[in-house]
């Protein structure tokens, strides 16, 4: 009595998924995508898996709503009994999940005993998409029978063990060269608990790769907690704008001046802000700020500073960099970049500066023709002269300017609300 592995598994952990909207006239695509995203998070939370939504048939996991016979040899039966099915990892249908469009699907945690929770059923079906078959353990998510919506759902042990046999657990994560900061004691909750502002001194010679900036010798970040610079040095995240923001190795990094904050799934890591130079080596000594940062689809990390850009493999600067912005195909006249992000909608890289934006194709390494364009042409409601842009774990793109941000709705192609919301309140609990 336990989970059952079905043999195949994905040979890569950074999976892509895409909702195909055939038969979806009656349902709100935004809520459907949100429920699917949350269902996938159940599995990524307990494994090395990551899921990125793209708008392409080439995604690893394609999600369809189908009716009756739909060409895969497993016809649906109308409302009741069979709710959905999914295919184990592999080519063709491999990984795909099909939902019976004739069911009465409840979205976004709606409660009513007549309908069926899409979130719950999707969580189960994605277990198949990842290589889990049914489990006979009572209460397991991979039990064949629908068990209703549990709002505070936590993955049962049987399912968690099954997925970790296939894709390890998150804690084993090898994060390239960036040291994963995991304090010995469980991290206290919260972003608004600022760690004590002490300086860390060592009597032994520093292992730091950069000469200490002050008479105090700091312990190198690679061996211990990030340095805690003297109080008067550090910016206060409740009282500042930000130069750049990006998701790097699944954590959310905010950059200001010479420092960065790092937010994980449980909030702000203690010991931050840390000097950027402690995580990314060989940035210019006289650097006052970074203009934009993003993690490429090949997981290299790109910093834009003035007229140059720097490509890092983990902490290490890739040989041959920095290069001028013109090497990307940006015009000579550009003296800086404001924001860069990969747009989940089409996996293209968008570069913003002033009132203009460009579209860059990471796969062909070329700036696309027909650019620059005015930001307002498609990014309705987003202002000019941005500070940052990034795609967050919920699949939406966020644009930051001054101390506010807009959440962009890919389907409506406009910001969710005209008035920007406070960055400090939303991300730092100010």
């Amino acid at each position, binding site marked *: 009595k336990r989970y*059952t592995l*079905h043999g195949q598994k994905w040979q890569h952990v950074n999976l892509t998924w895409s909702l195909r909207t055939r038969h979806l006239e009656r349902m709100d695509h935004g809520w459907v995508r949100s429920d699917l995203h949350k269902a996938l998070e159940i599995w990524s939370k307990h494994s090395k898996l990551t899921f990125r939504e793209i708008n392409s048939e080439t995604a690893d996991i394609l999600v369809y709503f189908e009716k009756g016979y739909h060409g895969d040899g*497993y016809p*649906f039966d109308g*409302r*009741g*009994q*069979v*709710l*959905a*099915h*999914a295919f184990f990892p592999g080519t063709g249908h491999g990984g795909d999940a099909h939902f019976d469009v004739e069911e009465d699907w409840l979205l976004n945690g709606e409660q009513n*005993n*007549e309908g*069926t929770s899409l979130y719950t*059923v999707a969580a*189960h*079906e994605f277990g*198949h998409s990842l290589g889990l*078959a*049914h489990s*006979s353990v*009572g209460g397991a998510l991979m039990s*064949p*029978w*629908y068990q209703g919506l549990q709002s505070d759902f936590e993955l049962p042990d049987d399912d968690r063990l099954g997925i970790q046999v296939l894709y390890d657990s998150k804690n084993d994560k090898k994060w390239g060269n960036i040291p994963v900061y995991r304090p010995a004691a469980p991290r206290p909750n919260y972003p608004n608990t600022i760690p004590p502002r002490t300086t860390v001194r060592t009597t032994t010679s520093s292992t730091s790769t950069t000469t200490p900036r002050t008479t105090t010798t700091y312990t190198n970040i690679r061996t211990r907690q990030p340095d805690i610079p003297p109080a008067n040095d550090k910016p206060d995240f409740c009282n500042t704008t930000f130069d750049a923001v990006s998701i790097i190795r699944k954590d959310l990094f905010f950059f200001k001046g010479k420092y960065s904050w790092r937010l994980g799934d449980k909030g702000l890591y203690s010991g931050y802000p840390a000097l950027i130079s402690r995580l990314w080596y060989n940035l210019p000594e006289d650097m006052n700020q970074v203009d934009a940062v993003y993690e490429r689809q090949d997981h290299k990390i790109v910093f834009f500073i003035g007229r140059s850009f720097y490509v890092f493999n983990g902490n290490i600067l890739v040989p041959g960099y920095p290069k001028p912005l013109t090497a990307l195909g940006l015009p000579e006249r550009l003296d800086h970049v404001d924001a860069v992000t990969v747009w989940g909608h089409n996996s293209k890289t968008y570069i913003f500066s002033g009132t203009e934006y460009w579209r860059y194709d990471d796969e062909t390494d070329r700036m696309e023709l027909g650019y620059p364009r005015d930001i307002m042409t498609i990014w309705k409601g987003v202002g000019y002269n941005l500070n940052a842009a990034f795609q967050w774990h919920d699949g939406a793109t966020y644009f930051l300017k001054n101390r506010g941000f807009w959440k962009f709705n890919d389907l409506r192609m406009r910001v969710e609300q005209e008035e920007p919301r406070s960055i400090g309140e939303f991300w730092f609990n100010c």
Partner: protein
Amino acid sequence: RPVEQSNKIRSPPVHEDVYGYLTKFGYLPESDLATGNLQTVDQLHDALRTLQTYGNIPVTGKLDAETKELMRKPRCGVPDVTP
């Protein structure tokens, strides 16, 4: 519209539905069209026992009320017993 029965209880499975259900979800081998549904009664009892184990209900090998109830429940379309 007539009030739908709660939990979408479908009409109770009748004899061929039992074979259909057990075959569909992998408890009985696909019937061999050349020989038709010649599964033996023993095969049926074994299949019911496996289903009852999967569904965490008393394992009787018989098509009793709890088993019929289980077979009416909404579920995933992927077979439980995969070759």
